[in-house]
């Protein structure tokens, strides 16, 4: 456990800049939106771009953190440490998972900041207006984050140790796996249709949002796919991290 903390500290020391910048920019965008509009619908409109960008960014940064270890030959010192090779991968994965959770915290904070009694949320889901919006945000963000980080980890693990075309191969694999996951989403989530599909209408002071849906089958599918890729990636790291 302490070794994991030391590895996380190292990731923070070396790779905090892009994470901090993305968090700060999102918070700034949220605050500017609140200042000028002060309404949850406009806040969602403003935050959707940084939310999606952060998901992609963290997955790309996770892949890049492995690549940079190999490019700088620092993987020699990591693999020579008295720890399991998969712990190195777990630390990198957790670092970007924590970054995602921080981003989720900022997004939730911005939404909470802009919610008001004027906002009306209409849905078949039980619960109060703002809590439904927050629940949808948490479920979407975490399930997609889990999927993207898992695929990124797996594509790195699969291509690790390859001397040639590693970059192209890992990027191609990442796109291939994401496409395959998207293609399989419809038939697999249809098996879980019993879990329901809930539309959420948000009517704010200045605008309305009617295109949001809460789809538990998708959250379960994306989260499980992400976990599967993560576990398979960690297994591959343990087996193949070899100089």
């Amino acid at each position, binding site marked *: 456990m302490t*070794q994991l903390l030391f590895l996380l*500290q*190292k990731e923070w020391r070396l790779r905090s800049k892009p994470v901090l910048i993305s968090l700060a920019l999102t918070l700034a965008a949220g605050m500017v939106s609140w200042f000028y509009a002060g309404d949850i619908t406009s806040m969602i409109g403003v935050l959707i771009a940084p939310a999606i960008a952060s998901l992609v960014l963290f997955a790309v940064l996770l892949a890049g953190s492995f690549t940079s270890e190999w490019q700088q*030959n620092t993987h*020699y010192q990591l693999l*020579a*440490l008295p720890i399991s090779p998969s712990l190195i991968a777990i630390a990198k994965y957790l670092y970007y998972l924590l970054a995602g959770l921080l981003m989720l915290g900022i997004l939730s904070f911005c939404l909470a900041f802009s919610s008001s009694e004027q906002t009306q949320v209409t849905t078949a889901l039980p619960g109060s207006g703002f809590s439904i919006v927050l629940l949808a945000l948490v479920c979407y963000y975490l399930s997609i984050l889990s999927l993207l980080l898992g695929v990124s980890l797996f594509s790195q693990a699969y291509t690790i140790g390859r001397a040639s075309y590693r970059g192209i191969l890992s990027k191609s694999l990442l796109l291939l796996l994401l496409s395959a996951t998207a293609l399989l989403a419809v038939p697999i989530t249809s098996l879980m249709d019993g879990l329901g599909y809930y539309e959420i209408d948000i009517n704010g002071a200045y605008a309305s949002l009617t295109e949001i849906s809460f789809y538990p089958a998708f959250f379960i599918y994306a989260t499980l796919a992400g976990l599967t890729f993560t576990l398979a990636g960690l297994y591959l790291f343990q087996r193949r991290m*070899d*100089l």
Partner: protein
Amino acid sequence: MSLIEARGLSKNYGPTRVLNDLNFQLQRGSVVGLLGRNASGKSTLFRLIAGVTRPSQGKLLIDGQPAGPVTRRWVMYAPEVPCYYPAMQVYEQLLFLARFYPSWDHDKAQALLGEMELDPKAVIGELSKGLRARLKLVHAFAWDNDVVLLDEPFEGIDQPSRQKIVQLLFNEYRHQRQTIILGTHHIDETEQLFDQVLILKAGRLVCQRPIDELRDTYQQPLVQTLNDLTL
């Protein structure tokens, strides 16, 4: 009992056999010269002893245990390539390593930094090749390990400093239980340190003998013997 033992040790990378059926034993506290021409398999053997790669066949035992995560607790491995984080300062890098080795001696590391004329606040990416090589030596001797694996540790260090550093490390900082395996092309400068020599040729062990025996047999400098055995 030997500290390091190879039994039928072979390593393949894809279809290429890099090391072929090595058998040897190294005693605790000895200084071993691992010699050979380029691509003879020296770096691969270092990696196997360090436990950062697995044998394709055979066994590599350190203190009776297969080389791996467990044995890495008392094995220090400095590869030929620069392996430290360029964005870190020297002290940050050493602190990161120290956290994984309970026997790390911060006072000794501090003293070694002074001896190696390394500024703890210097950014590693801005260090010269020679200073980076000195950092490897601080990493090697700042903790109480049993095995030190140094693959071309003196590259980039100027000749007068090299001799001074070698004498200092081996006479003052090395402890007697430490087995040091040194792979170097500066044979004439390090020859006097060796107790034993392993010579590899195209992945095969062509010589494993105590240095005195080798000198008695060949009656010539070690570098000449290496040439004779590996040509």
